[in-house]
């Protein structure tokens, strides 16, 4: 069953914007080729994680093998690679694409091309994919096939004259898609006689099987019982199981060139399976690894602290469990004067951060405080040393800093004309540098270089709000560049609150400092003594607010019968205070922290 000649194998992925119908099309393809009976079809078979379904995004790559008898009478093995759909996982996407020879570009015939589609399609072009445009939802009254075809040609530069017009929802012309895969995509190349090279596309933790590795074989054969070697680490494992997804796991004896499937090898954590690594035979190793391997590097960091200090161990265990299945996420213990014991966590991007936080809250029932996200800065000291900085609290004194570099991104924003002005204003407020501005019908596409630190600071929310939700946004990491960056410390009654300090460009520092002081003033209840809230750069105070003392707080009636109750109340109050975040004599309620960290510009 795995001896399919290369000529009858097609490996493909599907590129689409959220909601343009990728998962529905995948379901239809599975159904049409008999992978699952109608009874077994749940909506969107491939997005198995609850969170993935809810957000309509794919976090882990998945494959499914389809057997399709084409019009030429031959039986073809079609391997669908479902790739993560978000820019945070750009590297993962690039590895998934590297495992395929072609892509279906699915575009909603009523909505047209979106920013996310673009970023992914460029990645597919980079991966030398043959791309087949597919116009979905042509049954909708709002569908405008000629306009969208034109848009694909204008914006992407792809010939859309042969675009396949379908409705994944009704099943219209699914056959046309299958035929196009066979006739328009090239077969994979490979040599079964050469030493094994297989691309490690992704891996996940299964409580019964241990780590399951998704692979695409280039040369050689991958067999049960084989001793394999991870070329980046040299680690050797014995293959226990080999198989394919149809979409259920089905065991096989081996996987040959051009094929996709899974292996298990008694590996305990996905951290040992680096995405993009090359798997080879330990006894007959390949001389050269497959190109393109990059270790994953977090670009956004934040502190995660348990709301209840007693949950610290639980948080540690939960992070360890998450890491079992998500090697791209990093964590290390951290202590904050304000928040106590917690972890500094690194993520591939903002969505990744959000997903991890949400999973901790949802799957592990943890109540968390997250500090403001920070990007990774490069600090060049006057003594010639360089260090990476991702916690504002660790920023060295200005006198020893020669200069600081910050990461920039290349952002693509697509927005209806009406909101373009507001979007351009937002981008320039965020220090954006316009690279390109083109129009496609009544939609504009703006390409900007933006400092990532301006984007982690609520950019996405602002973009949605200024465009009433119509703007779509995608980005790729660009390069590091020097910036006039300063740390803004927040002081409560003169004491710095480490968890609230942040790094910003000098031009924005005062405005942000004022905004956070004003916000804290609203959030911190009046207390026994007046409270001074200050924002400072180094020793210079740039903003100040005062919360006046509470004006009245005294029990009106207190006689002999009340003493016990009032004393117990007082004792309870003192007990409760021990759990509160206290700064000198100021109590900052949890809610204030959360809201301050989530601040708007």
């Amino acid at each position, binding site marked *: 069953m795995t001896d399919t000649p290369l000529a009858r194998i097609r490996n493909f992925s599907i590129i689409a914007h959220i909601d343009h119908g990728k998962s529905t099309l995948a379901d239809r393809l599975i159904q049409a080729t008999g992978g699952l009976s109608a009874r077994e079809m749940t909506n969107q078979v491939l997005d198995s994680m609850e969170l993935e379904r809810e957000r309509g995004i794919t976090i882990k790559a998945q494959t499914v093998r389809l057997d399709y008898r084409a019009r030429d009478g031959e039986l073809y093995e079609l391997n669908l690679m479902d790739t993560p759909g978000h820019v945070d996982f750009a590297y993962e996407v690039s590895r998934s694409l590297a495992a395929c020879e072609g892509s279906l570009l699915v575009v909603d015939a009523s909505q047209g091309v979106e920013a996310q589609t673009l970023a992914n399609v460029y990645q597919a072009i980079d991966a030398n994919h043959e791309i087949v445009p597919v116009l979905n939802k042509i049954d909708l009254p709002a569908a405008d096939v000629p306009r969208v075809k034109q848009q694909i040609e204008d914006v992407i530069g792809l010939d859309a004259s042969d675009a396949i017009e379908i409705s994944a929802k009704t099943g219209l012309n699914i056959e046309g898609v299958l035929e196009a895969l066979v006739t328009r995509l090239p077969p994979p190349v490979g040599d079964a006689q050469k030493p094994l090279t297989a691309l490690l596309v992704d891996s996940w933790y299964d409580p019964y099987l241990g780590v399951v590795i998704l692979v695409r074989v280039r040369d050689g054969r991958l067999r049960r019982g084989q001793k394999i070697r991870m070329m980046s680490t040299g680690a050797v494992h014995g293959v226990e199981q080999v198989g394919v997804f149809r979409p259920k796991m089905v065991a096989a004896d081996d996987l040959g060139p051009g094929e996709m499937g899974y292996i298990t090898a008694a590996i305990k954590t996905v951290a040992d399976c680096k995405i993009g690594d090359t798997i080879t035979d330990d006894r007959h190793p390949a001389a050269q690894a497959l190109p393109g391997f990059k270790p994953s590097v977090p670009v956004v960091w934040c502190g995660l602290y348990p709301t209840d200090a007693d949950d610290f161990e639980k948080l540690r265990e939960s992070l360890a469990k998450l890491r079992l299945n998500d090697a791209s996420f990093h964590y290390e213990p951290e202590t904050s004067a304000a928040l106590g014991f917690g972890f500094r966590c690194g993520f591939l991007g903002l969505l990744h951060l959000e997903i991890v936080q949400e999973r901790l809250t949802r799957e592990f029932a943890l109540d968390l405080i997250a500090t403001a996200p920070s990007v990774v800065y490069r600090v060049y000291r006057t003594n010639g040393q360089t260090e990476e900085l991702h916690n504002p609290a660790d920023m060295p004194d200005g006198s020893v800093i020669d200069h600081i570099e910050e990461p920039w991104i290349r952002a693509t924003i697509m927005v209806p004309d009406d909101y373009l002005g507001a979007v351009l204003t937002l981008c320039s407020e965020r220090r954006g540098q316009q690279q390109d501005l083109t129009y496609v019908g009544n939609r504009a596409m703006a390409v900007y270089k933006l400092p990532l630190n301006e984007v982690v600071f609520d950019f996405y929310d602002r973009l949605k709000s200024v465009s009433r939700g119509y703007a779509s946004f995608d980005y790729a990491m660009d390069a590091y560049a020097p910036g006039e960056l300063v740390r803004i410390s927040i002081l409560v009654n003169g004491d710095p609150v480490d968890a609230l300090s942040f790094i910003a460009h000098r031009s924005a520092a005062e405005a942000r400092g004022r905004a956070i002081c004003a916000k804290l003033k609203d959030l911190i209840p*009046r*207390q*026994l*003594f007046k409270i001074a809230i200050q924002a400072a750069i180094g020793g210079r105070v740039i903003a100040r607010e005062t919360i006046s*003392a*509470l*004006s*009245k*707080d*005294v*029990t*009106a*009636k*207190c*006689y*002999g*019968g009340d*003493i*016990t109750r*009032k*004393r117990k109340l*007082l*004792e309870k*109050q*003192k007990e409760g*205070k021990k759990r509160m975040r206290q700064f000198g*004599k100021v109590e900052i309620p949890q809610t204030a922290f959360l809201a301050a960290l989530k601040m708007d510009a």
Partner: protein
Amino acid sequence: MCDSLALYIHWPFCLSKCPYCDFNSHVRDTIPEARFAAALRAELAWEAARLGHRHLRSVFFGGGTPSLMHPETVADLIADARRWFRADDATEITLEANPTSVEAGRLAAFRDAGVNRISLGVQSLQPDALASLGRTHSAEGAIAALRLARDLFPRVSFDLIYARPGQTLAQWRSELRQGLDLAADHLSLYQLTIEPGTAFETRHRRGDLVLPDADEAAALYEATAEEASRFGLLAYEVSNYARPAAESRHNLAYWRYADYAGIGPGAHGRLTLDDGAIHATRRHRAPEAWAARVEAVGHGTTEEYTVSPIERAREMLMMGLRLREGIDETRFAARTGMVLDEAIDASVLRDAIAEGYLQRDGGLLRATDAGRLRLDALLGALVL
């Protein structure tokens, strides 16, 4: 070492429950007067037996509505108290009364029973406010009862409640002035407080009852003190105003953290016994259960424990800082077994003094007017 005693006697019955009140009061179709009179006398005798022949500083009949008691019951209890303890001319014997005509008719009999101070629950001089506070008397009735009480008793006090929903500062000033015109030498002026489990709390939670915010409450409080002092009444405690030497001796015992015995349903006591420890006592709250217990074992105590030094320190600070006179540090040490500095946070003390909330000199720690206005928050930070 503690010879002086304040005696509290609780009469738990009311004709109706007021919507703001969380006191231990109960409404019954008929009040079994004889049974409760006998039980109170029995419990008093039981308590007296272990307290010894102490100096009786004060007796206070509280409730509930003690003016619903038969004057003979009051007379019997006062006579008992005089028998068990050493009363003298200065012994203050207060009875709380509602200013209804029925109860006003009994005032003379209470005086004859030995009561020498009356505290009238007037609460308001505004007819609509009286109705919303659930009071059954009229403003005129209250004024009449007040005049009568002043004729009959050497010492008279009455209560008013302010910071009521919708009440403006000007309205309160004018009502208070009217009250001060009627006042003798003592007034209790309470800010309306929403207590858990009351009808007002339910309405407050629903948003039907809107109270002044902290700033408005502070303004009302300051206006209250200002008006009262113009009439020569000084805020000697958070909510109590008196001419010098006219303070409630009984209530001072609570605030000075002196010994007091509490008998009757739900009554609390703090008593120094022969073991030298301060005992906290609490009686059964439910009237009938309390009476049954007294009949069975001679007293209705459900809880009694010795108060630890730190607990005593907390209680004494909590109560003592309510008084303008403050806390005598020597007495504090003697009463609690702790030096004042062991019981409070030194840095909060320093800041509170700097802020003008506390003063400490001449062996006294006292809260200033500003400090007393924020006493709950101050105690929360100060007390260890």
